[in-house]
């Protein structure tokens, strides 16, 4: 069994994984939309995706905390191979989650709501970013429980002020400028660009999300035994 398959199976064995991936995106569709904007479920999905990514990184974090990484380090498997396999498995599951939401909203809201292909690309880049962020976040802690306890607070605040749980325009203008440095903001920005059909702005959001992903990956991929 390859590491990729093993990571996929380990992730799916977690009790919350399947509901998070398949059920919760459907529940989000029940949230009423605001007039003149994209369905609320599109931005709330950012929060769901963020927490799902954190859950999927659990296997990597626990491998380090339980000392499995030390055994892997002494085997012929390189750290890069181990990490890419786990990240690929996590990304695949998060992309599946995005697809579930997109297909379901295509059925519920119809094909005229937005450009679903661009939305899928935006979600894909966001998923990679959330996965890398979770990886980097976990490197700061020795216990997954502590890491999750703090993340649940920080993650909610990040999504709240970034305009994922409520529209960004309700925030004070000074705050709106400040939140641009947050990675989660760029999903809200991309969704707004998608709504306004501003292609350049959307591309910028996707690129910035990918750069954030790269930065977090550089921090999170360090081999800490």
């Amino acid at each position, binding site marked *: 069994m390859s590491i990729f398959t093993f990571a996929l199976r380990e992730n799916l064995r977690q009790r919350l994984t399947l509901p998070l991936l398949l059920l919760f995106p459907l529940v989000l569709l029940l949230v009423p939309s605001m007039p003149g904007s994209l369905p609320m479920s599109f931005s709330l999905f950012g929060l769901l995706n963020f927490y799902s990514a954190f859950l999927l990184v659990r296997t990597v974090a626990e491998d380090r905390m339980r000392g499995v990484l030390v055994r892997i380090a002494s085997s012929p498997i390189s750290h890069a191979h181990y990490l890419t396999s786990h990240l690929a498995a996590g990304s695949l599951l998060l992309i599946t989650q995005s697809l579930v939401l997109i297909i379901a909203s295509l059925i519920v809201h119809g094909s005229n709501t937005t450009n679903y292909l661009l939305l899928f690309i935006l979600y894909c880049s966001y998923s990679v970013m959330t996965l890398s962020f979770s990886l980097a976040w976990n490197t700061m802690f020795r216990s997954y429980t502590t890491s999750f306890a703090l993340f649940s607070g920080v993650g909610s605040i990040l999504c709240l002020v970034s305009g994922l749980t409520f529209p960004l325009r309700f925030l004070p203008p000074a705050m709106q400028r400040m939140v*641009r440095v947050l990675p989660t903001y760029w999903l809200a920005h991309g969704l707004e660009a998608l709504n306004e059909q501003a292609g350049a702005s959307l591309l*910028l959001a996707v690129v*910035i999300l990918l*750069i954030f992903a790269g930065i977090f990956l*550089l921090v999170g991929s360090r081999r800490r035994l």
Partner: protein
Amino acid sequence: MGRRISIESKHLFRFVLGVLFFLVFFLRYRMMDPPLLLVFLLVVFSLMLRWRFSFSPAWMLIDASLLTMLSLSLPEATLLLSLYLFYFASHRNLLFCIPFAVYLVVVLQGLELLVPLFSLLLGTLVGVWELERMQLIKEADEYRMRTHHLEAETEHLLLDYADAQYLSRLQEREQIAQILHDSLGHELTAAHLSVKALDMLLERGDVEKAKVSQEKIEQRLSSALAQLKLAVRQLEPDEKQVERSIARLFEEFVYPVQYTIRGDVALVPPALQQILHSAIKEALTNVAKHANPTKVSASLDCNSTLVQLTMENDGIMGQKSSSTGNGLRYLRRRVERLGGSMSIQKGEQFKLLISIPVRGEMGL
């Protein structure tokens, strides 16, 4: 044992880079539109890539050049070049800094020029610190290596010394066996045969011949006794030899030495005798090399439990360092290996005190 916390140049590098980054961010915060933020993030990514993987600083020229080109259409991003100036300066690539420094001087105005200037200065400082640190590490490694070699050499010498002692004892035994066999053995065998002959003569009642045989036996035994005495005299060590050799060291020294020897040096085990001899030689060499004394005194006390050597001189020590030299350090190690101690007092007089307990035959 707690982990030693030390601040290295890489920590200062990261700290200063962070401070510079936040300074630039703060100065450009009001102009922070999405394109500028994108450039900021790209610069962060580029710097973090170098932190994570070790590339040659020359590769950073591509990043800096791209940023320079980008800053032509996005002037707000120009200040970010200061971070690259810091990077190049801290990696001691001052040549790479020149084109970007010139560009910054031309483009930036007013107080903003201070940012690249400070970046350059701080980068150079960090670079110099790193260079010095590397040199120190190299020197420390060399010293460690030298100490390791010296210790290994000492170990070998002491082992060789113990082997030599063992071999000399074997040789002594062989010599004793040879003497006993060659001289004493021959006479005793002859005496034994004569006793048997005497028995036979007495049984036959030949008293005259028996008396002759008895005289021969007495002669043989007297000869054996004389040869035994001779052999013992040959084997017996010269008890005063060591004492004479030590006294000769003092007497033949370039400066007059007032010395006293108390106790019997011959009672001291051979291993200690040799250390004692070396210690006196080393101490006298030191006096000749480093001091210009008017008075040198030495005293050696030997008893059944302790050997104590004290040497004093009033010469001025020309050495700038207060630490002991190689010879004394080596001597100290040998003394300590025998369970003894060596101390040096430096004041108006230079005093060397060596005490070694007498443990047994070898003392090792």
